[in-house]
């Protein structure tokens, strides 16, 4: 009996062997065939060599994450076999070039099938170049899974056309040949199949692209910053779109300048952002407080990677939550968004710019490496640009300014928000400063003015709270077990909930897509309703759990924590719930 449209393919090899491009290419082909995919990228902090992998999960239903089980492993190196053969399910297969040598015994013992093929030879003979070996491999996979070759042809066309028709032709020939060979040799033995389900188109997009798209949609036309994995691709995407949307993209001398350029641009009136990772955010700390004090709207993305320090530069973590919530000395209002899906990334970016201008203060978006890079097939309508609105808050128009008099940039108001004028109008010539200041923006040291300004600024957080999103619930209202998470773990948790609701115990999820400020009384009430709170985080100390206890008094009953730089899987979460011990995950009850 074939198992249709439910499998995971994993390609492993050295950096520079095209692991990612092949994997992502195959994923896109499958997505075009109307299937859902999730593509997970794992790579080392080096440019060539070492060991990377790419894992594509395919399903007929919408999927939100990867799963541990691999059905087809494509090792480009011996190391790839050694590292991953245990993940292949019995009955699954390893498809490899005959040149890749390894000890076959344990695989056979496990019941893993071996599918050697002369992939390199096919590439050379059919395409004229060894480079096309990955095409051969993917062609073979398609053949073995009996996936409609048209989609493979299609993606080859798309991906290689800028290299010229000869390259396209070569790859097509290689793919076709391998397809046929694979089908002939192994299709009968391999139960997992891929069947196209033509239907509405879906976008194959990662979280950083979604953030960048959201920013552009929100009218962000200024990004400054410094390359840093895994945030660089935001800067790069904005650069790629700079002509089309007239975006000023400035690579600065460092992250300090990165955020300061954005502050300057924001002060002038542009919607401005920067994107970095933890180390860069450290350097932005001082300027963040400055923006808070001067009431400058600003959006900063922290795409987290595993720390401390340089840590694991190409690996994931949720280690910056408490740092982001308290970064910079003294106290000032901030808003922190923690989107948990790729579509949420888009909307978080849109919302961030509106909140930043509405509350005239920095908004931070917490991203992480997994969600930066992982791709999903997302229904197009989730990116409904017609729903994007731009709210510039109390920004004074030229007409309003024409009528204004005695302008005070930091006017004390009930909601703490002051009418904002951009520099350049004769009726609103003002100065502002990171020193404590009067309503006019002049430096002051008077205690009463200080209190009024401090209270005014902090009031913005209190006011914003009312419109911030409470944790989203997934799963039934009543459950034995309530997961608590934030950010990119949404997918893994959501699928864990699904599994548990089939296998028991009854579970649901409270997931924080926004984390500061919140209506903590309501959050507390939500948490209090739960029978058993199970915190799942990708860090060592359970940072969200600490925050929730500080703000609501609620304590987590169980904590499932992972901090080795690899994304936590649904399977690991399930194991944690079920009390199975795994080295990768720490469970505290």
């Amino acid at each position, binding site marked *: 009996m074939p198992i249709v449209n439910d499998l995971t393919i994993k390609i492993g090899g050295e950096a520079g062997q095209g692991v990612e491009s092949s994997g992502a290419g195959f994923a896109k082909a499958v997505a075009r065939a109307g299937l859902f995919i999730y593509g997970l990228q794992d790579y080392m902090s080096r440019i060539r060599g070492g060991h990377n992998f790419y894992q594509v999960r395919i399903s007929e239903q919408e999927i939100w994450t990867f799963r541990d089980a691999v059905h087809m492993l494509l090792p480009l190196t011996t190391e790839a076999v050694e590292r991953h053969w245990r993940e292949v399910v019995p009955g699954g297969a390893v498809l490899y070039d005959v040149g890749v040598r390894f000890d076959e015994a344990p695989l056979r013992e496990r019941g893993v099938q071996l599918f050697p093929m002369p992939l390199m030879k096919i590439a050379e003979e059919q395409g004229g170049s060894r480079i096309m070996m990955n095409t051969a491999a993917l062609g073979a996979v398609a053949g073995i899974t009996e996936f409609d070759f048209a989609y493979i042809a299609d993606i080859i066309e798309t991906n290689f056309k800028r290299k010229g028709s000869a390259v396209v032709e070569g790859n097509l020939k290689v793919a076709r040949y391998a397809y046929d060979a694979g089908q002939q040799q192994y299709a009968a033995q391999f139960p997992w199949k891929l069947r196209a389900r033509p239907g509405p*188109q879906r976008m194959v997009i990662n979280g950083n692209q979604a953030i960048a798209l959201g920013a552009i949609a929100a009218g962000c036309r200024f990004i400054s910053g410094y390359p840093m994995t895994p945030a660089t691709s935001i800067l790069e995407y904005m650069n790629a779109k700079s002509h089309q949307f007239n975006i000023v993209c400035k690579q600065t001398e460092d992250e300090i300048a990165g955020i300061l350029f954005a502050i300057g641009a924001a002060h002038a*009136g542009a919607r401005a952002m920067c994107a970095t990772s933890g180390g860069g955010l450290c350097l932005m700390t001082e300027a963040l407080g*400055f923006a808070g004090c001067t009431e400058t709207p600003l959006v900063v993305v922290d795409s987290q990677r595993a720390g401390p320090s340089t840590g694991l530069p190409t690996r994931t973590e949720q280690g910056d939550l408490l740092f982001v919530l308290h970064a910079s000395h003294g106290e000032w209002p901030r808003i922190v968004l923690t989107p948990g899906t790729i579509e949420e990334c888009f909307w978080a970016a849109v919302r961030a710019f509106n909140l930043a201008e509405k509350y005239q203060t920095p908004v931070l978006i917490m991203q992480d490496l997994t969600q930066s890079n992982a791709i999903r097939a997302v229904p197009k309508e989730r990116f409904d640009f017609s729903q994007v609105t731009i709210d510039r808050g109390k920004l004074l128009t030229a007409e309003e300014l024409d009528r204004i008099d005695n302008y005070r940039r930091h006017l004390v108001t009930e909601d703490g928000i002051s009418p904002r004028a951009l*520099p350049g109008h004769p009726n609103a010539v003002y100065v502002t400063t990171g020193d404590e200041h009067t309503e006019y923006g002049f430096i002051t040291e008077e205690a009463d003015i200080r209190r009024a300004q401090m209270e005014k600024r902090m009031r913005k957080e209190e006011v914003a709270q009312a419109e911030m999103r409470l944790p989203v619930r997934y799963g039934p209202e009543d459950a034995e077990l309530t997961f608590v998470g934030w950010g990119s773990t949404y997918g893994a948790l959501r699928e864990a909930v699904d599994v548990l609701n089939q296998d028991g115990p009854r579970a649901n999820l409270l997931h924080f897509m926004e984390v500061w400020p919140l209506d903590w009384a309501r959050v507390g009430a939500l948490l209090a309703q739960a029978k058993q709170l199970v915190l799942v985080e990708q860090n060592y100390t359970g940072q969200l759990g600490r925050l929730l206890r500080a703000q609501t008094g609620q304590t987590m009953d169980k904590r499932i924590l992972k901090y080795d730089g690899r994304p936590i899987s649904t399977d690991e979460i399930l194991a944690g719930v079920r009390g199975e011990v795994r080295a990768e995950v720490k469970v505290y009850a």
Partner: protein
Amino acid sequence: MLDIKLYNSPEKSTWCPGCGDFGILNAVKQALAMLELYPHEAIVVSGIGCGSKLPHYIHANGFNILHGRALPVAQGLKLANHDLKVIVVTGDGDGYGIGMGHLVHAMRRNTDLVHIVENNQIYGLTKGQYSPTSDKGFVTTTSPDGAIEPAVNPMLLGIANGATFVARGFSSEPKYLAQLIARGIQHRGYALIDVLQPCVTYNKVNTNAWYKQRAYHLEEEEPDYDPTDRVQAFQKAHEWGDRIPLGVIYLDETRPTYEEQVPALKHGPLVKQPLDGTPLEVWEAIKQEFV
């Protein structure tokens, strides 16, 4: 020429009586008046230090940043709204110490702004520690045996790192300084104006008299001096000690500004572009790129 009173701020200055910063403030106002730039057309961006309080004492747009961080903000501001005339004011500690990295890169970029350094060769606001321009051997609370490092040479710094206008003024000659500042504002690109500024409270060596004795007007004493000659400028830049040249030491009017070269700014200042109004078809096409 506008009325200089136009630039009077309601704020009373906090500087010590006799501080050179008064002369600089005066010169900035004069320069704006001379160029007929109204208060709303210019923005004064400063760091933190005694002199960096200047934006509070002049009626013009002002943005008083962090210690050492005025230049990047000023550049971001200019990139977002290049209609504004940007005047950056920093101390020597601010500009040449903590701000050195930003400074060198700003010079390379050649963003159109004028950068006035109130160079009192000391950290004033923190009560008298040695600064990057303190002469070797200068004794302060943090250099009890005299500063070990040789002083930063701002003229050389500018010439070597790509500044296109490198000049020196003196706060006790506000008219002359005003002219330099006006030229700096008019110069298209990054203009450095290092200003000798006596700190009457903490610098008892480089006093007003000390500077007066040594300062001379380059263009008067050496009428043949050609600031566009890099080698000559390099040599002249070394002059410090017995004689200190004032005036434009180096000038390069051939390099375009940074913002002139940014394609996104071809259509005018960024802040004057609409944020929305992109037709849905455009978004659909972009979405299609991901299919």
